[in-house]
């Protein structure tokens, strides 16, 4: 299995505060990986570095063998933890935008998912509820045939029914040889779909293991281990 993401000695400091400290990590293709940690642990900082939204203070980062840049962005589909689309646009205009810029965008898949959710492509994003906006963003991200999907808190702030929809959408739409990196602190909701987990605490990786190994070696679920590791 080829390496899709490789970080070496990656650090990021904001002012005097270190958000990420000497992280070294290697992720293989074809896995669903949970990036787990409490709020402020450095999950979003790591994700932003992978997507080129922040510049590292130290270390190197390769996505699909490419340094962060045009080539890495071509193969990475990113869902931020906030609304990032122009709310004045119609859904069909946003779909055209994605279709124009991403060669791997599957327009038919996007329209199909919208139809299943009864979201009208003529509707403007600003007229939609927060939950529907999040679903639209997820549809756009999962309609790409990317090699690496990075989903930052995709199920935070939505009701349990919407969580099920989001997880189903992720599972039924990603490319089988692709890797999904999901950041969350809601472990129990996503534990069943994960192949591997990365625990991150105070900007450092404290565990990088397969879910099966955790269950075998510790005799407990990922959720239980998380509560133990991050006990306040």
């Amino acid at each position, binding site marked *: 299995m080829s390496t899709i993401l490789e970080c070496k000695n990656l650090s990021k400091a904001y002012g005097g505060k270190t958000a990420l400290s000497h992280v070294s990590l290697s992720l293989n293709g074809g896995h669903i990986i949970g990036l787990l940690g409490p709020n402020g642990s450095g999950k979003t900082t790591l994700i932003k570095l992978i997507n080129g939204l922040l510049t590292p203070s130290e270390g190197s980062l390769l996505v699909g063998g490419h340094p962060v840049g045009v080539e890495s962005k071509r193969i990475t589909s990113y869902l931020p933890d906030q609304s990032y*689309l122009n709310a004045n646009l119609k859904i069909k205009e946003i779909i055209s935008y994605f279709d124009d810029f991403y060669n791997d965008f599957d327009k038919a898949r996007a329209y199909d998912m919208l139809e299943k959710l009864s979201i009208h492509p003529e509707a403007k994003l600003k007229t939609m509820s927060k939950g529907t906006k999040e679903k639209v963003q997820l549809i756009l991200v999962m309609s790409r045939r990317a090699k690496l999907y990075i989903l930052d808190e995709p199920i935070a702030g939505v009701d349990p029914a919407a969580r099920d929809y989001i997880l189903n959408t992720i599972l039924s739409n990603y490319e089988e040889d692709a890797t999904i990196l999901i950041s969350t602190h809601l472990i129990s909701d996503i534990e069943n779909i994960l192949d591997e987990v990365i625990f991150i605490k105070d900007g450092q990786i404290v565990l990088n293991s397969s879910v099966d190994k955790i269950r075998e070696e510790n005799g407990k679920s990922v959720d239980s281990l998380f509560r133990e590791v991050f006990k306040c």
Partner: protein
Amino acid sequence: MLGKLLKYEFKDLGKLFLPLNAIVLAIAVLWAATLAIGIDGSHLGFISTSLMILYVFGIMALFIITAVYLAIRFYKTMYGSQGYLTHTLPAVSSSILNSKVIAALAWLFLALLICLISILILMLGISGFPDASDFNAFQTAFGKAFGTSAFGAACLIIAVMISFCFDMSMMVFASLSIGQLFSSNRIPAAIGAGVVCYVIQQAISSAGFFILGLDMLNDLESDAGITLAATSDFNRYILLASAGVMFLFGVVYYVICFIITKKKLNLE
């Protein structure tokens, strides 16, 4: 990729700017029409006065809205929430920045052009279409004022307009880019950066023009009094120097924006 980025820049900005420019032009045409049919003193005089006030406010609004909206949109799409999409597009930083700069230049230039065209329309409304001899006389006088042909003088003025648009838009973009380097109070930091850029530019260009002015005064003194040729040369040099200085500062601001976008992006 630059073509695609430009397409969406023009499309988004055009939604506000096209109607805005069209409204100002329409007001100028209507006002010129009321002037042309000579309605002063009649019941239509009130309409003409109202149109004059509307035109003045329209021109002011055109420049203020264009400048403010360009700054807001640059900030939102580069360093605000929409920056998450902008900077994860498979496009090089220079293409992203160039699309913003070219679009801003084009819309600012259009606003200036609409202002000039509306003034010409109003002049036509007041004095009607000039006959061929008047027009030729105007052309000659216009060219002579800058010691060149009418076409050369027009090119010179257009160069000044483009340099002004480039300088102003890049100063604002550079200030916003400097502001995003701060972890908090980014807008006040951007305003502060803008003030510093403006003061530095004014100090350097004033010093430059002072030296250039002294040099030209020496030239004038060596002539037998102030001749038309000498003042024409002075006008031409001043315009050329202004265009050059503004363009150079625009380039400096562009480099600042480029370095920050490429090396110091900080979407916390």
